[in-house]
């Protein structure tokens, strides 16, 4: 499906950006140099191994070397952390059995465990680290895009969770996903699209 156009979230201060984000593959590959277009070897390798192929000590989040880091990334785990978690969930979802030989329910159960970590104060709740709400919803979009979940399904998940667990009494609820504010929908979509477009922002 096509990407939706959404306005920048409130923590986005483009006026402070010195350069446009450098498009990168996103997720595990974000921050790495472009691979040989004829090779898909990088898809099967541990990113740490790729980063040391040329013998230079670097990491996948070293933005200064591979791309201009954004100056306005808020507190909380890096978007790449969420991308990694999502990619792992996606791999488990696609596996008919886990490496331990568990059934195909392992994938959804694995994802359920991650969803629980998005609860208030849990390890994937960016707000618990002092990040603004917009970033918290942005990272949920990143996670779902990395897991291979479709955007409508990701928004449905948020909406359903909101219906049962968040008693919003706001005037600005989304017209389609009526159990969450429209601002949440915009920021989830923004994170989703940034992962898909390979424009995740990185820490300096």
């Amino acid at each position, binding site marked *: 499906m096509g990407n939706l156009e959404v306005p920048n979230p409130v923590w986005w201060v483009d006026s402070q950006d010195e350069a446009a984000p450098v498009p990168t593959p996103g997720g595990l590959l974000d921050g790495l140099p472009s691979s040989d277009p004829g090779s898909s070897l990088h898809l099967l390798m541990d990113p740490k191994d790729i980063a040391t192929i040329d013998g230079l000590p670097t990491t996948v989040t070293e933005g200064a070397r591979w791309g201009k880091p954004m100056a306005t990334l808020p507190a909380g785990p890096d978007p790449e952390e969420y991308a990694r978690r999502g990619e792992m*969930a996606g791999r488990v979802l696609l596996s008919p059995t886990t490496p331990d030989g568990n059934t195909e329910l392992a994938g*959804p159960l694995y*994802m359920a465990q991650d969803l629980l970590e998005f609860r*208030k104060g849990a390890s994937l709740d960016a707000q618990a680290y002092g990040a603004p709400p*917009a970033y918290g919803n942005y990272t949920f979009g990143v996670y779902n895009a990395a897991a291979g979940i479709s955007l409508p399904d990701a928004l449905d*998940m948020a909406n359903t969770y909101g219906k049962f667990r*968040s*008693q919003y009494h706001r005037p600005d609820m989304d017209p389609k996903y009526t159990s969450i504010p429209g*601002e949440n929908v915009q920021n989830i979509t923004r994170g989703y699209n940034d992962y898909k477009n390979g424009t995740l922002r990185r820490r300096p």
Partner: protein
Amino acid sequence: MVPCAGDLNNRLSRWATLFALAVCLTVAGCGDDSAVIWTAKEKSPDGLWVAIANVRQYGGPGQAGLYTEVNLARVGEEKHLMQVISLNVGSVREPHVDLHWPTNKHLEVTYYGDAKIDFQAVRSSGLDISLRHWPN
């Protein structure tokens, strides 16, 4: 071949998310995934009214939110709140609001930093309410 994330087809995506969400909601149980993380009260000089400010933080997948509400109540009847101001707050690191009663009939609310005004009453129960913004 290691399967790549991002290749989930729609049917699998839908089934997986529904199942995962059902498990998540079952484990999480009922109740609101939000909490008041800051609160302040200020009585009017004559002691008849009290202004109560709350900052409520929402959590959960795709639920992040931070809202400040200012309510009025008669002293001793704090269960019957009248909402007079609602703000969508940009960041928890910022200070929130100050409550001040210049007179018995006038509540002055000052908020700091970035916030979007969702609701603002200028008069309620014979009291004037003014809202001031103090940028950081």
